[in-house]
């Protein structure tokens, strides 16, 4: 059997994000600084280092030194991230609003697909929004039925590591730490580009309140 260190290294080198939801054992392994050093020394051979985001809730491998090749890879990745940003954010808002939890998704939350589907089916505005989201290149759905659109979106999100399906037979999904990473990315963009997104949202909400 492969050791815990081996498992962690394999996941990191495969470009995966390790959080408590995806792999609790590996995550706990990385909590100890001695283990982290061990992992670092192995990763260093392959020009990689261990990085964490979202208050150490997710770990992933980053490049140690960045040359031409690495920069090209990062550039491509960044393009993916920025293209995925809007569809993901709209999806997050849709889930949040339709489940009426008023809580934005974060690591460890469960989404019951059936529950979500019932609400979206009953609310034309949500159905329309779902249709719009499923048409983005990120999901690329051509299906006209709501059921197929929803399933495709969830399947894609599992592929991208934002969700996991703990039980293959049940349509219940768990949010991974990569969502928290996404929020970090959003916060970073907000700060660097000086968009003051939160203020904008508040102003808009204040306006609707006035109406």
């Amino acid at each position, binding site marked *: 059997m492969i050791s815990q260190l081996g498992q962690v290294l394999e996941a990191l*080198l495969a*470009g995966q994000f390790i959080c408590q939801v995806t792999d609790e054992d590996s995550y706990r392994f990385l909590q100890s600084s001695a283990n982290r050093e061990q992992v670092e020394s192995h990763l260093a051979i392959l020009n990689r280092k261990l990085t964490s985001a979202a208050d150490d809730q997710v770990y992933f491998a980053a490049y140690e030194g960045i040359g031409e090749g690495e920069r090209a890879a990062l550039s491509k990745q960044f393009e993916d991230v920025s293209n995925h940003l809007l569809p993901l954010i709209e999806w997050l808002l849709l889930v*949040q609003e339709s489940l009426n939890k008023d809580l934005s998704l*974060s690591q460890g939350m469960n989404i019951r697909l059936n529950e979500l589907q019932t609400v979206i089916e009953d609310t034309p505005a949500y159905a329309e929004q779902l249709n719009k989201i499923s048409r983005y290149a990120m999901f690329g759905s051509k299906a006209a039925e709501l059921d197929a659109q929803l399933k495709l979106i969830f399947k894609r999100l599992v592929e991208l590591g934002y969700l996991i399906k703990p039980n293959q037979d049940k349509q219940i999904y768990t949010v991974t730490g990569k969502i928290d990473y996404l929020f970090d990315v959003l916060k970073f963009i907000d700060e660097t580009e000086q968009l003051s997104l*939160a203020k*904008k949202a508040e102003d*808009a909400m204040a306006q609707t309140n006035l109406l």
Partner: protein
Amino acid sequence: MNNNLKKAGTALLNALSNHSELVMQAYFSGSINETDHSPKVIANLLDLKILWRPENERNLRLRPALRTLLEESLQDENTRQIDANIGSSLATLKTLSEHYKAALNQGRFHEAEAQLSEVTERVYSLTDMLATNVRLIWSRISNEFGYVSTVDAKIRENELAQSQVSELLNQLELFKFDQLTQLSGSHRELRHLLVVTLQSSFAHCIQELSLAQSKLIDLLGRFREFKGRTRLLKGFVLHLEQRPDFKPTDYSRLSKVPTLFNVADSLIKPANIDVNDVSQEQEWLNIVGKMHNINRSQSTTRSSSNSSPLTMQDTAAIELAENKLKVAVEAFFCEVIENGKNVTALDYYQRHQLDFDPEVWLYQIIGGYHGLPEQDKAFFAIETQGQPDPTFSGNYVISDIEIGLH
């Protein structure tokens, strides 16, 4: 025991059980409509102080004491009332203890006993109250104020709970154990109640409350974080609505790439099984075992347009070739009839230089003979030539067949 009080208490409990529907209705809806029930029942419940009328012209409501009893017994999560009146409880305890000590000193033992049971009751109700309050706070924490839906409401609920916790903690400071110790003096029972019981309950309560306090602050932070996140999401969507062409600068081109965007590419590919390693044989077998033999039925793949048109053909020619052996056997039997002499099968075979396998020829002759109708069979006599098998007894090896006419 006071007989009148006992009777009245039983009557009260009976009334509660007789009108349980009405009481629960009042509990859930807050008030009851008098016109729905008979005036006699209402008057009875009012007499027993189960219901009361807060103001003239208002609907009847449950007495707060009864409501509290129900909330506590049912562990209803809607209850948010924290009774923090520890100061007055402690003052009562002090007074009662003084009564007890005075009664003891003056030798009024019956009275002292009654006072002691009163003190016991008060102490236990005080500890119960503390435990209930702690449980109430924790139950609200554990379902994260699930009874209100919006984050704003949760934040307000959280603030309320925090103020209640600090209020409780302030009240707990009223516990002056040095005074209580002095008060209980050398009386063993009193000391046990006022010092030991109260102290353990106090310590437990303090510990739980400080835990609850930190948990509440944690939760508040989380709720604020959620609120911030929602604002962030909505703000981003709004921003893109205002500026659809917005694209963040490519941070990966910066000389120092921010850690967030420095995500290394996938490097590793799954390894393969070593077919020469015996220890991996089981996995290997499993993989092989999962392979399916795919039998595609041809008829399903052939489409109707591809099928050749149906043509009528003479199939006789093919049949002839197939039955060459049969024809030869028939000729053999005919020759036997024509010549009227005994012929061995192998003789005939050599004379006509037939090109079948000799053994097949022999089988076919035997088969041909047995295949004849009973009537025809009677014309022929069949004799087998051969010898018993040298090795296996009971087996007879036929080397030739002689056929003649009867």
